[in-house]
């Protein structure tokens, strides 16, 4: 894709999509820097496939890359960087947001696919069918993963609150 028109369309898409998908990437990875790295990786790959992806829905396409890419990306990173575990504590710059931090820790305690279901259902406000499309699984699987995720999330938040007392 060296066509200037397509480059311009891609650039316009990135401008428009950046904030929205950055938020999802942060929630999926639990970390701003990792989220940005993941999003950039996906956007580079989207450029390669831009002509085809643009025929359908590039936002949905990018979302699929983020969600599915997060698992393989993370495994690859783990091999490359043995210390690249999710941070146990918030970035100190996060400051006083204790409740946010509780939620972040609880979210990060979920298996990655369950976390993706929670983020897509409750942050992106996607329907179950859209979540299924993003994850590449059946809607039934989304339902059961969501149910398990919410049970785990509730328990994790409760444990965090008890630990804080």
């Amino acid at each position, binding site marked *: *894709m060296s066509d200037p028109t397509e480059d311009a369309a*891609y*650039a316009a898409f*990135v*401008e428009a999509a*950046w904030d929205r998908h*950055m*938020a999802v990437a*942060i*929630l999926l990875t639990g970390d701003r820097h990792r989220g*940005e790295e993941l999003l*950039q990786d996906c956007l*580079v790959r*989207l*450029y*390669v496939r*831009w002509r*085809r992806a643009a025929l*359908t829905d590039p936002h949905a396409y990018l979302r699929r890359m983020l969600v*599915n*890419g*997060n*698992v*393989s990306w*993370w495994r690859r990173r*783990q091999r490359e960087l043995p210390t690249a575990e999710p941070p146990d504590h918030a970035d100190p710059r*996060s400051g006083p947001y204790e409740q*946010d931090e509780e939620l972040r820790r609880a*979210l990060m*305690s*979920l*298996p*990655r*696919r369950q976390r993706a279901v*929670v*983020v897509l259902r*409750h*942050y992106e*406000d996607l*329907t179950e*069918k859209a979540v*299924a*499309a993003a994850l*590449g*699984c*059946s*809607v039934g*699987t989304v*339902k*059961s993963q969501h*149910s*398990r995720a*919410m*049970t*785990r*999330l509730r*328990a*994790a*938040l409760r*444990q965090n609150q008890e630990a804080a007392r």
Partner: protein
Amino acid sequence: MNDDQEHLARALRTLAHREPASPAPVSELVRRGRRARRRRTVAGAVAGTGLVSAALVVALGLAGIGPTPPGTPPGTTAVAGAPSSGASHRPGSRSLDARSVLLAAAETAAREPAASGHYWYVRERTSAPARYQPKRGRPMREMPFRATLTTTQDTWDARDEGAPSRTVTGQDPKVTFASADDEAKWRRLGSPTLAPGKPSVNDHDMDLSFLIGNHRFPIRKLLTLPTTKDTLESRFRRLYDAESPSDWSPGKPAFGEYVWSAAQDLLAGPITPGTRSALYRLLAEQPHIRSLGKVTDSLGRTGVGLAVKRGGTGESAGEFRLIVDDGTAELLAYEFRAPGEPEPSLRTSYEAMGWVGKLGERPRD
């Protein structure tokens, strides 16, 4: 948390935006994209066609994003013994302990004729807590009333790569309040809408995979699962060993729980009669599965309840229940009960399932 979803949504928004966003590095992305595209072109030229492209798709971690849906494929139609409402059950002199039930189901499943088609069809009725999101005002810590939303969904999962799949969700919605008092509270809030206004027809241009743990299995792969207990167990062991502990919390489940969890999806999926039989035999060896005896699903059908309960307040706590028709070995329902809650927070009853030849078609009774 089920009763506080709007609060969760707002908390997630706060979490995602607690630091100011950096600007999009557009030029840098275009430059890296061009470089990546050149690498891909060179690789494709060297390898000819096919394999390298496939590897790139895998590297992207994407399910195939199919082309424009092709025309309706020709196909065969067969019914894989789908359970029907009001299915009769032989009164049992049969033992209803979990192992006996599962071994009997294995025998029954093994006798089922093999069937095939282009689409795996499932019709399911699901009940879950009704979701209420106030459009304005402070987020609610708790739902002001208890209600359940029940809807029906049809799914056609394409067997062939690149073929479109379809779901029709939100059919026959029904809202049930836990009590008259709960309904009165809902009315005082202005009777907000809790159910979808009309069914939604959704065509997906990508494979809808089933899951074994975190491994994705499109239908084509599902159909190649082993058909004897020992080989299926070996396969599950390999999949289990390949699971990354970091994908599970608080840690990887025991092997038996892993199998049980996978069975919840697979028994409603297009596995061969041999695989279904092998899976039941494998489940029969898991000591933590207990029989609840005869139970009734949400459609009023009677089957044998099989449950795995995880106690305490841990992240996996709760009871996962499968209801199996002990006459046909078909899965009737899947239910989940959260700790301390007498009623299931999720109930899915499978009204019909089986192979069909084309989108929109249903199995013959």
